[in-house]
């Protein structure tokens, strides 16, 4: 078998990875320029990719969070709640990230005591608590209809529609690159390497004088921050937030994207997110009432026949080159 989700199949030389990343960036910019409506899709895809980077960190520890979209929702609702008073996007972004990170720390202190199914289910339960509250506290959140985000300013300027789309796209791309590099460095650091230890050799970590919980907590908080960043980006791009962002199927989608893209590289989540959004959009356009089935079938095929995900397939191909 050529590798698995949580462990890279084969290592691609850093130079190859960098080249691929550059190629990807160029392709994304080209596509956004050539096809205006794709700009929106790609912005959302980049944002989700950032959230999936967080999932990837946890996957390295063998842990699946089936409730991670709660952090995305926290970031998004931070924007929705604060935008009327504080319409400055460049402040809302770090604020959303920080608040999500804070939630990540509090929730993390609780959930890092659990492993495997319990870890996944607890995250699921907590995200459902958030979802239910967002849905139920109608006077605050406008319930399932959600809140519209309007009148954002960027460094004090209110750009016209087309400019704002480009600004959001640029922000998302920039942050995707930033977090991609950060996660890449993180995974190469002792903190990142120790994550794999949680999956199989937690005892050994303890007998190296390392607290496995702290290793996992650090990754969890970072992943929550990235979820928050993704949420703020999604909120500012779609300019409408709903509790659906926190529903368990949304979290399932993030894990879906992680597996689709492959966890072998920080590029995986973005590959996965772009493929996911595009398949979804094209499937929805082609067969509006069976897009879910098509996505499900894609997921099934990937897991059964290419468990390394898109990155695994790419890496396999690159690895064979002389």
């Amino acid at each position, binding site marked *: 078998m050529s590798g*698995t989700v949580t462990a890279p199949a084969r290592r691609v030389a850093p130079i190859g990875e960098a080249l691929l990343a550059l190629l990807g960036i160029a392709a994304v910019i080209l596509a956004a320029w050539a096809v205006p409506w794709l700009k929106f899709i790609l912005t959302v895809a980049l944002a989700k990719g950032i959230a999936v980077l967080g999932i990837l960190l946890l996957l390295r520890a063998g842990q699946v969070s089936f409730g991670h979209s709660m952090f995305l929702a926290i970031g998004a609702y931070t924007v929705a709640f604060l935008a009327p008073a504080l319409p400055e996007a460049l402040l809302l972004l770090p604020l959303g990230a920080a608040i999500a990170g804070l939630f990540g720390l509090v929730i993390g202190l609780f959930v890092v005591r659990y492993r495997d199914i319990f870890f996944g289910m607890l995250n*699921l339960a907590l995200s459902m608590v958030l979802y239910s509250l967002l849905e139920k506290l109608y006077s605050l959140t406008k319930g399932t209809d959600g809140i519209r985000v309007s009148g954002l300013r960027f460094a004090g300027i209110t750009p016209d529609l087309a400019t704002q789309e480009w600004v959001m796209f640029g922000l998302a791309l920039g942050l995707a690159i930033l977090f991609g590099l950060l996660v890449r460095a993180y995974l190469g650091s002792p903190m990142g390497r120790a994550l794999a230890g949680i999956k199989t050799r937690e005892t050994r970590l303890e007998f190296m004088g390392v607290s496995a919980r702290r290793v996992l907590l650090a990754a969890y908080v970072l992943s929550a921050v990235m979820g928050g960043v993704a949420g703020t980006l999604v909120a500012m791009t779609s300019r409408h937030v709903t509790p659906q962002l926190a529903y368990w199927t949304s979290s*399932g989608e993030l894990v879906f994207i992680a597996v689709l893209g492959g966890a072998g590289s920080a590029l995986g989540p973005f590959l996965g997110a772009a493929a996911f959004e595009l398949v979804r959009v094209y499937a929805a356009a082609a067969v509006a009432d069976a897009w879910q089935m098509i*996505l499900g079938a894609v997921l*099934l095929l990937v897991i*059964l026949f290419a468990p390394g995900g898109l990155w695994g397939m790419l890496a396999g191909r690159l690895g064979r080159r002389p």
Partner: protein
Amino acid sequence: MGAWFSENGLLIGLALLDGLANAALIFMVAVGLNLVFGVLRIVNVAHGSLFAIGAYAAASLGLFLASLGLPPAFGFAALVVAAALVGGLLGPLIERLVLRRIYGQEEVLQLLVTFALFMILEDVQKLVWGVQPILQDAPMKLLGTVEVPFGEDTIPFTAYQLFLLPGVALATLVGLAWFLRRTLTGRVIVAVTTDKEAAMAMGIDAAKVTLLTFTFGAALAALGGALASPTTSLVPGIGAQTIVLSFAVVATAGLGQIEGAAISALMIGLGRSIAVYLAPEFEVVVPYLIMVAVLLVRPQGLFGVLETRRV
């Protein structure tokens, strides 16, 4: 406190009656999920879809039988037959074609495979049964209502929800406990749940046990759906809600725990009903709060056993 209770005590009593029916339905689904987890070590997200398909199949079959002019009592047969059909057909199909290929792989892949199945089955339901609500409440009507005294007033409850649902759940619980402890097949399932390697070393055909358990679990989910069908109209999306509640029940109970599932289903069912009276805003949050609270105190669930697992 005393005054409050005399005022609300009766109402809470009523809430308990509602909670019981609710708990019975959640239990039927959760216990199948838990059984499957015990043997396959897979949390089956598509379990909720089996619930929904069981419900749809039961309603369709019931309506079909009624259209043949058969008496409404056949509606009950439809519930059982539909559940058996769904479990007996879809169960082996899913296990053989899909799950079998991913045993021993990483947990996340197993979970996602069932998530993929869930997505596919959601649309299959729409393609087969359409989107208009379907309902077939002949079995509920047939049993009529029971007047429960409430102060000077009486409150009508359907006998279906007051007696039949809890009765079937109880019978399932007792039957399952008997099956697992007293029959050879049941003991084999317990053995595989407790220690798969050891069981295989003893010559147990794990493939057969897995297939059997999954089929059985699927039938339980379908039966849960079939039993729910007379009380509700069937619309797209009922599977997604059911499964996430079942997760809460199973995690609260402890993985692989049968009796535990009954007790946590009861806690969650009653908790929700009481919340409708006391704090309706929080009704939806109650199951998850119960789960989180339980896991805070007992990380392995109410009845879960640390490290060594058993049914």
